[in-house]
């Protein structure tokens, strides 16, 4: 077992050592319920799918994921444990990836706990379970992208509140850039390829594609590239600013 798994294990256990994990999971489940049934019109749609459920995930992640990611590095910096961690024989890559994966697995667990919804649609009708699987995968990939942004921002500050706000803002930009309103605002005066590039960068564009059940490798790849990019940035930020 490499040190990366040791870091991952410790990190994941620390979620459950505090009320954080339980609070997060309960709120996540409550909000997905509220969004799906009341705002999403799950029953009114009359369709056996989980579109009403997945549709709200970007907005839900917008404030839930920063709450999870803000402590990734800020807390280590604030409490000084970063000095301990970084003088242990663990490579920077193992630390960054280990911590990130722990958080990502954790959101995965929260997502899996929404399985009663999946059972409900299967009870009520005859949904396309492949599409639902794709939706779950897309949602999880997107949560990873949010987390990787949060990881980088949390590495840059000791202050968890600042980490939270900045992460929410940056994630918001990544979500919004695919929104029709924003697209329309750019169309007409910006070059076509700029508009396309902005849309292509958006979480929403790729997530919607996957969540509708069209599992295109390029959409998955997009999230993987985003995640790797922000994790590399996390490493660079840590190396530069660890002692400040």
């Amino acid at each position, binding site marked *: 077992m490499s*040190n990366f798994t040791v870091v991952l294990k410790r990190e994941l*256990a*620390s979620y459950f050592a*505090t009320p954080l994990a339980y609070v997060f999971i309960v709120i996540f489940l409550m909000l997905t319920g509220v969004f799906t049934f009341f705002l999403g019109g799950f029953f009114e749609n009359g369709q056996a799918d989980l579109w009403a459920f997945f549709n709200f995930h970007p907005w839900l992640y917008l404030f839930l994921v920063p709450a999870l990611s803000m402590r990734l590095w800020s807390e280590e910096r604030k409490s*000084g444990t970063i000095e*301990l961690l970084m*003088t*242990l*024989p663990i490579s920077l890559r193992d630390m960054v990836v280990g911590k990130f994966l722990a958080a990502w697995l954790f959101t995965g667990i929260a997502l899996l706990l929404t399985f009663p919804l999946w059972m409900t649609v299967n009870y009520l009708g005859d949904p396309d379970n492949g599409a639902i699987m794709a939706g779950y995968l897309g949602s999880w990939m997107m949560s990873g992208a949010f987390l990787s942004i949060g990881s980088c921002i949390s590495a840059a500050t000791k202050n968890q509140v600042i980490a939270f706000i900045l992460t929410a803002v940056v994630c918001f930009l990544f979500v919004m850039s695919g929104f029709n309103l924003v697209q329309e605002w750019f169309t007409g005066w910006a070059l076509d390829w700029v508009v396309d590039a902005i849309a292509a960068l958006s979480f929403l564009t790729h997530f919607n594609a996957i969540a509708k059940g069209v599992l295109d490798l390029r959409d998955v790849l997009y999230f993987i590239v985003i995640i790797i990019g922000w994790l590399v940035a996390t490493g660079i930020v840590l190396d530069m600013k660890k002692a400040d």
Partner: protein
Amino acid sequence: MITVDKLTKQFGPFTAVDDLSFTVNPGEVLGFLGPNGAGKSTTMKMITGFLAPSSGQVTVYGHNTLDDSLKAREIMGYLPEGAPSYGDMTPLKFLRFIAEVRGFRGKELTRRVQTVVDALQLTSVLNQTIDTLSKGFKRRVGLAQAIIHDPKVLVLDEPTDGLDPNQKHEVRKLIQNLSKDKIVIISTHILEEVTAVCTRAMIIAGGKLLVDDTPQALEARSRFHGAIRLTLTHAGGALEQLQALDGVKSVESSGNGLSLIIFPETGASLFLPINDLLQKNNWEVHEFHVEKGKLDDVFRAITSGGDINE
């Protein structure tokens, strides 16, 4: 062996460590002394590879702490200033985590953890979260973590800060009992500690190395080194007779002239001559001993730029 070569650290325009060079050999216990803000912790952070030097370099048994930092970290144990540890873990889980990172598994891991738990007497708090431990126990958990892999090089930033006198004693014993081929670097504000455990002492101020010597030699720099402290029941001309003695440089008195400190000329030993004088005159003596010198005075004189012989 640790080689520190022209080590410098700047924070913006401020120079925290200024062109420090020295080597430490196996078997040496090196004590860093210096006023607050001298650059002791910053130097230790660079030795352990946490901070990158602005210029200069550190090698630990041939491993550069920048390019070959993982190898260097493997053979070092480090107690950072303030003994940070994960507050939501228990000492047991925390120590198991460190042992696992250090590459131990299974029975060996359990044995290692047990050894340091015994050495630092942590049994009573093993399953209490670290956040709720007292300051001294937190420090002991930090120490346990640093020695768990029996490292060749041990860097301890103020290891006894916040410990009760018994625990201070235990920790000093622990450092003394480490096998003789290790390198230990400690920083401390407790000067007796230097005499008690260190084989070598460095005084640093303003990031610069001011003195590098054995604790005994440092004590010898004190004006009290070799002086005789004498308390008599009545004065009766003692002061004059003592001043007239061969090898006496000066005599200071206090408390109605009953408490005397007799300073020798350089290199002179006063014990026997004064003892003879006491017997000859049949003076009644309360106190009579030779001073070793006070590190406090030496420290103060060196770091405030004053003269030791004032």
